[in-house]
């Protein structure tokens, strides 16, 4: 029970007034950011990251991860009340959450979303608590071929499991890979695609791109479509909450299945979005009356929210142990770790015990406090709806600009952000998904380096990706996932006969 002792130690690190106050501040900021349309988890964390630069690492990560939990909770609010998903992975929550709100069952849907988020995270945190010590020795097995195999798996699972048209996912991903190549190439030491510009030397920062692609483009769309946020009033009474909780045991299969999917995909980097859809789709497939989904079924909220949060939480594990972010927000937290002078990797668990276990303990506390907080503050946040869009939009644009500037203190990045805003708008108009683009921008460079280092090491022999059980099984799984839709169709054909 070494993990248990270390966890208690983590709680001891955490239980100071300062950390608790930071935690509350983080949660409130996070919910706020989650509720604001167009912001959401990664943007919120990105914008608020510089606030923590002067703090010690443990306080900083506690505050940031609480912003993250807060944003996750808050994202559900906008999905259900306004049909605007705060995060890519709350998209599935809108399928049944928004119809429920339209039927006047907003409070029920919100309680369901918050509760299932809580359960999903809790399962994932338990997993982290007991697996983390093992993960660090497992992590040492990762050399360049293994890393490349993991990146390949992520890219392939996006193409194979995504809901969007495959060719559009591939287009989006390729553009992201192209832009990831801008700047200095580590392997050859040469500059690429900088066209002699000093601003392009450092490459295209992924956060700047994300703020533009999601935040600015959402504002542009809203301006064009309705110039107003439409929503439903919501208040939560204790009776509704208890009612939902009483029915909870009925859905244990759904909850457990979604938690499992979430954890599995969260640890496999890049799976959070896939997790929420998979959770939803599986709940639908196994339900007794699948046709009632999409019309306001409470299970349709439980399933994606549990999976999204389980994966969002467990995504922090590969980030800490391997330095590979499992989600957009984890990628930003990874940047934060480096700013605070911590090198994520196998030795983080050995060398910075206080930090790691403080973080894990903060996941427990943050989720409990967060659940109470969202349940009590929903009416207040929902009142943002009543502020005219004309007043909210400039505020969002300004906060995006500050966020983009603060990342590298460069004016150039604000222009870049606006450029990406337009790109995001066009992408949304012509139906090209943004998530693969962002993913390629974050992982493209690392994937390329890992591939080329593997090639240098093996003397150009591709067999290196099947040279041991670990790398071989990941690579094979990646290729299977890439062609998953083909297998699925074949199977369907066989079944038809």
């Amino acid at each position, binding site marked *: 029970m070494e993990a248990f002792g270390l966890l208690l130690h983590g709680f001891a690190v955490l239980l100071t007034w300062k950390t608790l106050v930071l935690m509350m501040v983080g949660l409130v900021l996070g919910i706020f950011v989650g509720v604001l349309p167009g912001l959401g988890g990664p943007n919120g964390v990105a914008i608020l990251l510089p606030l923590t630069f002067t703090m010690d690492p443990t306080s900083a990560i506690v505050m940031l991860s609480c912003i993250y939990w807060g944003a996750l909770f808050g994202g559900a609010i906008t999905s259900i009340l306004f049909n605007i998903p705060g995060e890519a992975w709350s998209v599935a929550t809108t399928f049944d959450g928004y119809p429920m709100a339209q039927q006047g069952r907003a409070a029920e849907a919100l309680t369901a979303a918050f509760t299932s988020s809580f359960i999903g995270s809790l399962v994932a945190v338990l997993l982290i608590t007991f697996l983390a010590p093992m993960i660090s020795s497992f992590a*040492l*097995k*990762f*050399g*360049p071929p293994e890393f490349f195999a993991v990146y390949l798996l992520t890219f392939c699972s996006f193409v194979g499991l995504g809901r969007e048209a495959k060719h559009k996912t591939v287009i989006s991903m390729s553009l992201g890979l192209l832009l990831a190549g801008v*700047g*200095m*190439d*580590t*392997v*050859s*030491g*040469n*500059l690429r695609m900088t066209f002699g510009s*000093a601003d392009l*030397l*450092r*490459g295209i920062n992924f956060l700047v791109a994300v703020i533009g692609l999601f935040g600015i483009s959402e504002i542009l769309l809203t301006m064009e479509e309705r110039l107003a946020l439409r929503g439903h009033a919501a208040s939560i009474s204790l009776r509704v909450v208890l009612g939902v909780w009483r029915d909870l045991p009925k859905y244990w299969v759904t909850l457990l299945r979604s938690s499992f999917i979430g954890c599995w995909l969260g640890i496999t980097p890049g799976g959070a979005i896939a997790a929420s859809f998979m959770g939803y789709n599986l709940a639908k497939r196994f339900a007794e009356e699948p046709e009632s989904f999409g019309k306001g079924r409470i299970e349709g909220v439980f399933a994606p929210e549990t999976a999204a949060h389980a994966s969002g939480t467990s995504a922090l594990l590969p980030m800490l142990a391997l330095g590979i972010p499992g989600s957009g927000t984890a990628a930003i937290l990874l940047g934060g*770790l*480096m*700013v*605070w*002078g*911590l*090198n994520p*990797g*196998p*030795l983080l668990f*050995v*060398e910075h015990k206080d930090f790691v276990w403080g973080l894990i303990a903060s996941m427990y506390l943050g989720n409990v406090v967060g659940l109470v907080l969202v349940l009590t503050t929903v009416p207040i946040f929902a009142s943002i709806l009543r502020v005219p869009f004309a007043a909210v939009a400039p505020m969002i644009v300004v906060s995006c600009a500050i966020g983009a500037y603060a990342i*590298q*203190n460069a004016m150039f990045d604000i222009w870049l952000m606006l450029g990406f805003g337009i790109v995001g708008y066009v992408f949304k108009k012509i139906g090209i998904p943004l998530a693969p683009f962002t993913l390629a921008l974050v992982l493209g460079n690392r994937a390329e*380096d890992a591939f080329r*280092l593997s090639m*240098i*090491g093996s*003397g150009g022999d591709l067999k290196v990706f099947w040279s041991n059980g670990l790398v071989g099984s990941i690579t094979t799984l990646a290729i299977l996932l890439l062609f998953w839709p083909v297998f699925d169709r074949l199977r369907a054909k066989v079944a038809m006969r």
Partner: protein
Amino acid sequence: MKVAITLAAALCGAPAFAGWEPTKPVEIVVAAGAGGASDQMARMMQAAIQKNNLMKQPMVVSLKGGASGAEALMYMKSSEGDPNKVLIAYSLIYMLPLSAKIPFNWRELTPVSVIALDQFVLWDNSAGPKTVKEFVAAAKAASSPFKMGGTGSKREDHVLTVFLEQKTGAKFSYLPYKSGGEAATQLVGNHTESNVNNPSENLEVWRAGQVRPLCVFDKERISYTSKVTETQSWADIPTCKEEGVDVQYLMLRAMFLPGKVTPEQQAFYVELFHKVTQTAEYKDYMEKQALKPIFLTGKDMVQFLEEDDAVNKSLMTEAGFVAK
């Protein structure tokens, strides 16, 4: 009484700072990623200055490690006349303009002082060969070339690898990682056979017994004799020359201001970093990271830089790393 103390403090402190003092927080620009040797050094100086009250304004560390550090160089170049930015430089100031054709020349910046020299050590996994001779023999006998991990391409680690090949006749395939920390982890995980990390980059994994130092690339042994691991101190590591491989390389750690600052501003920082080198924090750090203490400024520094530039240039040319 209080007035007297304040006056005395003012009298002692004032003459050195006569004329100019920063009025804004001072940014210490690091040309490398977080956690690397430059970053650690910057944070040590930040702490030393703060704890010993060496400057009224706070100091902030600003990481500009993009494009292998080129970002920091271009940033300093474009900050001409701004006395609130100090660069903590190392040999990239000579190498990057040669290998990647970055339009940068250190002569355009204002030199403040050289504050340390960093060592390079040949390391292998603690399960690997125990001496340089065995290591070289194993590398020669291996069916596929030994993998040497290092930071970046066409830089110090890469240059050292090329010279190691020339002197020993063994072949290595050089794997450029993003940081020394990554190179260290990869050696521990047995994905590479060796690396030539700075002492600070491999310190933690050496203490954990996961890697073994084979030899140090200097003409004399490291001077620190207190035990680092249970059995060994830095001084116990033989020089590569003793072991029959005559390759030497030291890397400067120096402070620069942007170009076109006033002599008063330059003088303030010379004095400031001179005081830093006398603090306990600096001395501890030098010993812990096995750095060679040195303090050069003014003409001595410029002469040192010119000579060092020439050495680096010839190494880079010989290794074939100069871009055409």
